[in-house]
C-alpha cells in the first residue's frame, strides 16, 4: 500500500520538531515532503543572536543537517516558497511552479517581523531580525555604516542591538514604553537591565513613537511623535511578530490573528494542521519555543493515531540571557492589591529577585542577574504549592552553606530543559534505559539541551548524580569533526595502538568519511601526531594559513610580522632594524602588541622572507597554537619593589619553550612581586615572585574565557619553576583537546588531579623528558624559509602571469 503523503509548508523549529516526533513513533507512516522558504536546513532560530554577535557560525546552529533529511527519506525543497494551496484537489504549488499533492498538510509557516506602519517603511536599509538573511544584512551594513537604530526594546530588539554594537556600530534602541521588556520584567529589573546595557554602550530613546522614516531611497533617520529626530543608516524592526497566515487564509482556512487550531492542532479543514508561530490556539499565538514543542508532541501523536492528551495551552517561564545577563520571568509580573511580593534587591552583586504571592501561592516571579531558583519557582507556580512554611530569605550566609546542590533534591517532575519540556525524571530514565553517558547523548534521546543550551550544565550534573562513580567528566564524548564519529581520546588511542604515523594513514585506517578530512580535523590530527611522536614530521599543508605561513593573515590578505622579544626586552640594535624595515617597506602599521613586543602589519606575502632576512630575528610565533610570549615586569634589577629577577626567568622560559606545539595558544607571565605588573593571574602559566621563592599560577585567562589562575605550587628556586612548568605544559599537551585552552582543560580535569600527576615523581620525570625530547625537533621557521629556496618558492612567492608565454 502506498504511504500517505504528508506535506509541510515551512522548515522551522516547531514544524521539524513535529516531524521528528512523528518519525520517532512511526517512521514508515508517511511519505514526507517539506518546503522551506529559506535556503537552509532547520536551524536554531533562538541562537541567531549568537551568530550576529559573531560567537558562532551558521553551521553551529543547524539542528537538523541535510543528512538528517536524507536519512529519514524526507524530500526537502529549500529556497522554495509555497504560493498556493488548493484544498479541493489537495495540491500545493511552489514559486517554482512545482506541484505536490498531499493527503495531510501541515502549516508551519512561522511569523514575520511586524513592520511599524509609518511613512517611509519602504526605503532601503530596513530589516527585521528573524532569519539568517537578516543577520547577514546586518553584518554587511556594519561594515561600512555607522548608525543603527533598533525599534523595539523587547528581547529581540535588545539582542539585535547588542549584536550590532559588537559589530562596531553606534546603536540606539527606540522603545514606546517607559521600561524595557515590559512583558517579562518589572520596572526595577528593567531599569537594571537598561543601565547595564547603557554601560555596554547602547543608547536608549524611551517613550518614543516613530512616526516617519526619513531619507530618499535609503533611510537616513527617524522622526518621532514629539518632533525629535535621530540619524540612522540601518533600522531594525523588532517590535513584534505577526503570524504568517495569508497562505492559509487565501485557501479559505479560517484564520484570526493566526491560523486557528483546536486542542489537537487541527484547522477546521480536515487533514490540514497548523503548528508554531503561525498557529492560534485558544486566542494565543505562541512565540516561545517551549509551548511550540508541546504542540509538536500533540500534533505528532494525533497524526499517527496515537492517543494523546489535548494541548490546553502553556504557562511558560521565560528564561533568557540578554547581553550576558541571566533573566527569568514567569506568571504575573506586576501583581495587584491581593498579591504580596518578596523582593530581594542586592545592589552589591547586581541581583534582583521578586516573587509574587497570593493566598500562600506563588503567582509570578522575576529574576535578574541570577536564575538558579527558576526551576523551583516555576514548579511552585505551576503546581500551586503552599509556600507558607518555607524560609523566604537568608542574607550573608557564609560561603558554602547555601542550599545543597539541587540535582539530588530535585523532584522527578521538575523541568530541566524548559525549551523542550524535559523533566529530570525523563532524563534519568533515559540515562538508565539507554546507558547514556554524555550530555550530547542525552540531547539526542530526549532533546534536552538542544535549543538554547542553557540547561547543559544541569544535565551534566544529573548525569554525574545518576551514574555516580561511573560518570567520567573527561570522557564526555564529542567527535573530532564531521568526518568521523570518533572522539579525540579514541583517535589518540588508536594512533598509539595501531602505530599510525601520518594524517593520511589515520584517515584511511580509521575510516574517515572525507578522504582528505576538513579544516577541523586536519590541523587537529597534525597536532595529535606531533604530540604523540617527538620526532613527528610536521605536515605543513594541514596547518591553517597562519601556522603554514608563519605569519598572521590579515583581513586584506596581507600579513603581520612579529619577531621575538624575549621577556619583552629589546635593544637599540633590534629597534633600529625594525625601524629600517618599516621605512624601507613602507609598512602601514607599527604597533606594540599585547604581548610586549612590536608588530609590523600590512606586509605583502612576497616581502615576508626579505623582511625576515633583514630583521635577522627569530619568529615570535604570534600566530601559532604554541607559546606566545612570556610577559615580564622589570623586576629586581631596577624596580625598588622587585624581590626576584622576573626578566631573567621570563627570558629563560621563553627561550626554553618557544616553538613548542600546544593544543591552543599558551601565554606566560613572570612578575617579581605580588603587585603582579606582568598580570600573571591571567596567564596559562603565571609566575609571581615572593620573598625567597615563586608562586606558580595556572589556567588563568584574560581573553574570551576570563578566569583567574589557580595557585598550583609555591616553590623556592628558579629550577623548580622550570621543572613544574615543563611537566604542566607536557601534561596539557598530552591530555588537552586541540583548541582547548588551559582554562577549560583545568576545569575539565580538575586541579587536584593535575597536582596528583605532577606529584608522582616517576610520571613527572617522564613528562619532562618527553617535553625536552619534543623541543629538539624544532627549527627556526623564518630562517628556514630564507635559506630554503623550495619553501620560499612554494609559500612566499607571487606568480606573475607572464611566467609562461602563450
Amino acid at each position, binding site marked *: 500500500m502506498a504511504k500517505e503523503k504528508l506535506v509541510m509548508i515551512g522548515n522551522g523549529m516547531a514544524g521539524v520538531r513535529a516531524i521528528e516526533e512523528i518519525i520517532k513513533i512511526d517512521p514508515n507512516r508517511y511519505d514526507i515532503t517539506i518546503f522551506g522558504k529559506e535556503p537552509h536546513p532547520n536551524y536554531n532560530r533562538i541562537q541567531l543572536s549568537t551568530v550576529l554577535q559573531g560567537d558562532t557560525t551558521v553551521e553551529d546552529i543547524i539542528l537538523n543537517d541535510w543528512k538528517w533529511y536524507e536519512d529519514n527519506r524526507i524530500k526537502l525543497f529549500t529556497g522554495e516558497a509555497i504560493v498556493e494551496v488548493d484544498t479541493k484537489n489537495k495540491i500545493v504549488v511552489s514559486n517554482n511552479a512545482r506541484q505536490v499533492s498531499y493527503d495531510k498538510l501541515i502549516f508551519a509557516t512561522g511569523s514575520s517581523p511586524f513592520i511599524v506602519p509609518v511613512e517611509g517603511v519602504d526605503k532601503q536599509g530596513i530589516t527585521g531580525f528573524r532569519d539568517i538573511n537578516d543577520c547577514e544584512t546586518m553584518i554587511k551594513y556594519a561594515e561600512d555604516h555607522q548608525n543603527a537604530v533598533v525599534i523595539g526594546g523587547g528581547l529581540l530588539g535588545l539582542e539585535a542591538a547588542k549584536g550590532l554594537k559588537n559589530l562596531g556600530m553606534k546603536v540606539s534602541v527606540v522603545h514606546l514604553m517607559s521600561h524595557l521588556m515590559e512583558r517579562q520584567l518589572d520596572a526595577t529589573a528593567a531599569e537594571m537591565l537598561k543601565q547595564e546595557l547603557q554601560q555596554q554602550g547602547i543608547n536608549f530613546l524611551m517613550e518614543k513613537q516613530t512616526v516617519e522614516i526619513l531619507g530618499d531611497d535609503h533611510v537616513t533617520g527617524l522622526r518621532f511623535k514629539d518632533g525629535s529626530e535621530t540619524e540612522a543608516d540601518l533600522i531594525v524592526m523588532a517590535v513584534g511578530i505577526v503570524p504568517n497566515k495569508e497562505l492559509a487564509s487565501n485557501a479559505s482556512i479560517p484564520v484570526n490573528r493566526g491560523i486557528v487550531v483546536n486542542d489537537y492542532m487541527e484547522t477546521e479543514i480536515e487533514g490540514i494542521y497548523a503548528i508554531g508561530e503561525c498557529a492560534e490556539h485558544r486566542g494565543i499565538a505562541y512565540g516561545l519555543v517551549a509551548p511550540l514543542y508541546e504542540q509538536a508532541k500533540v500534533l505528532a501523536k494525533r497524526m499517527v493515531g496515537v492517543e494523546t492528551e489535548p494541548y490546553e495551552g502553556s504557562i511558560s517561564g521565560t528564561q533568557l540571557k540578554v547581553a550576558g545577563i541571566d533573566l527569568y520571568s514567569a506568571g504575573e509580573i506586576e501583581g495587584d492589591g491581593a498579591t504580596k511580593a518578596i523582593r530581594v534587591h542586592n545592589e552589591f552583586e547586581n541581583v534582583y529577585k521578586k516573587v509574587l504571592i497570593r493566598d500562600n501561592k506563588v503567582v509570578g516571579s522575576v529574576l535578574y542577574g541570577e536564575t538558579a531558583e527558576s526551576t523551583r519557582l516555576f514548579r511552585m507556580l505551576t503546581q500551586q504549592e503552599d509556600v507558607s512554611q518555607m524560609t523566604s530569605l537568608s542574607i550573608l550566609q557564609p560561603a558554602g552553606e547555601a542550599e545543597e546542590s539541587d540535582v539530588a533534591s530535585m523532584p522527578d517532575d521538575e523541568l530541566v530543559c524548559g525549551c523542550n519540556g524535559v523533566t529530570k525524571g525523563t532524563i534519568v530514565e533515559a540515562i538508565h534505559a539507554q546507558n547514556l553517558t554524555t550530555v550530547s547523548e542525552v540531547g539526542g534521546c530526549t532533546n534536552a539541551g538542544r535549543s538554547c543550551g542553557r540547561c547543559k550544565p544541569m544535565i551534566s550534573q544529573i548525569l554525574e548524580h545518576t551514574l555516580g562513580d561511573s560518570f567520567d567528566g573527561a570522557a564526555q564524548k564529542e567527535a573530532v569533526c564531521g568526518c568521523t564519529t570518533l572522539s579525540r581520546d579514541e583517535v589518540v588511542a588508536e594512533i598509539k595502538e595501531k602505530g599510525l604515523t601520518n594524517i593520511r594513514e589515520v584517515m584511511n585506517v580509521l575510516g574517515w568519511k572525507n578522504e582528505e578530512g576538513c579544516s577541523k580535523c586536519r590541523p587537529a590530527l597534525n597536532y595529535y601526531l606531533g604530540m604523540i611522536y617527538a620526532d613527528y614530521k610536521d605536515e605543513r599543508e594541514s596547518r591553517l594559513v597562519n601556522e603554514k605561513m608563519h605569519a598572521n593573515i590579515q583581513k586584506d590578505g596581507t600579513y603581520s610580522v612579529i619577531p621575538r622579544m624575549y621577556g619583552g626586552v629589546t635593544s637599540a640594535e633590534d629597534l633600529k632594524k625594525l625601524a629600517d624595515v618599516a621605512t624601507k617597506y613602507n609598512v602601514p602599521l607599527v604597533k606594540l602588541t599585547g604581548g610586549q613586543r612590536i608588530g609590523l602589519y600590512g606586509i605583502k606575502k612576497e616581502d615576508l622572507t626579505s623582511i625576515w632576512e633583514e630583521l635577522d630575528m627569530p619568529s615570535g610565533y604570534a600566530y601559532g597554537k604554541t607559546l606566545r610570549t612570556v610577559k615580564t615586569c622589570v623586576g629586581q634589577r631596577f624596580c625598588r619593589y622587585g624581590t626576584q629577577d622576573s626578566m631573567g626567568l621570563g627570558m629563560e622560559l621563553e627561550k626554553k619553550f618557544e616553538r613548542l606545539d600546544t593544543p591552543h595558544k599558551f601565554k606566560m607571565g613572570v612578575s617579581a612581586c605580588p603587585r603582579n605588573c606582568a598580570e600573571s593571574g591571567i596567564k596559562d602559566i603565571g609566575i609571581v615572585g615572593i620573598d625567597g621563592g615563586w608562586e606558580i599560577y595556572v589556567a588563568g585567562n584574560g581573553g574570551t574565557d576570563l578566569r583567574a589562575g589557580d595557585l598550583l605550587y609555591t616553590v623556592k628556586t628558579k629550577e623548580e619553576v622550570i621543572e613544574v612548568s615543563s611537566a604542566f605544559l607536557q601534561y596539557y599537551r598530552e591530555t588537552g583537546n586541540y583548541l582547548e585552552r588551559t582554562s577549560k582543560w583545568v576545569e575539565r580535569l580538575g586541579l587536584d588531579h593535575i597536582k596528583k600527576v605532577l606529584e608522582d615523581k616517576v610520571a613527572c620525570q617522564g613528562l619532562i623528558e618527553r617535553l625536552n625530547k619534543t623541543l629538539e625537533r624544532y627549527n627556526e621557521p623564518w630562517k628556514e624559509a630564507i635559506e630554503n629556496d623550495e619553501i620560499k618558492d612554494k609559500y612566499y612567492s607571487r606568480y606573475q*602571469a607572464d611566467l609562461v608565454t602563450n
Partner: protein
Amino acid sequence: MKTVSKVGVAHYSALPIRSGIAIQIKNDAIALFKVTSGEVFALEDRSPHPKGGVLSEGLVSGKFVYCPVYDWKISLEDGQVQAPDQGQVKTYEVSVENDKVYITI
C-alpha cells in the same frame, strides 16, 4: 563583446600539491590549486564571505578549499560555497598542454 584569451601561468610539474598559489593577470587575482588527484583548478582569489579575504592560502581537501579567514568550504570545481553558507566564487577554465598550465579569462 568580451574577448576571451588564454594565458599561460605556470609549469604544471612545478605546482605544489594541496597548496594554492596566487596569480595576478592584469586586474584578475586568481587562485590556482593542484589537488591530490593531479587536477588543477582556478578560482577568483577572493572569498565570497562579505568580509572578503584571499582563497589561495586556504586548506585544500579533495576538491574543496576552506576559506582561510572564515572557514567557508568552497568547491574547486564549480566555486559553489557549501551549506550552510552560501555564495559562489567565479571559476576559470584551466587547461594543461605540454606541462604548461593555461587559464582562460
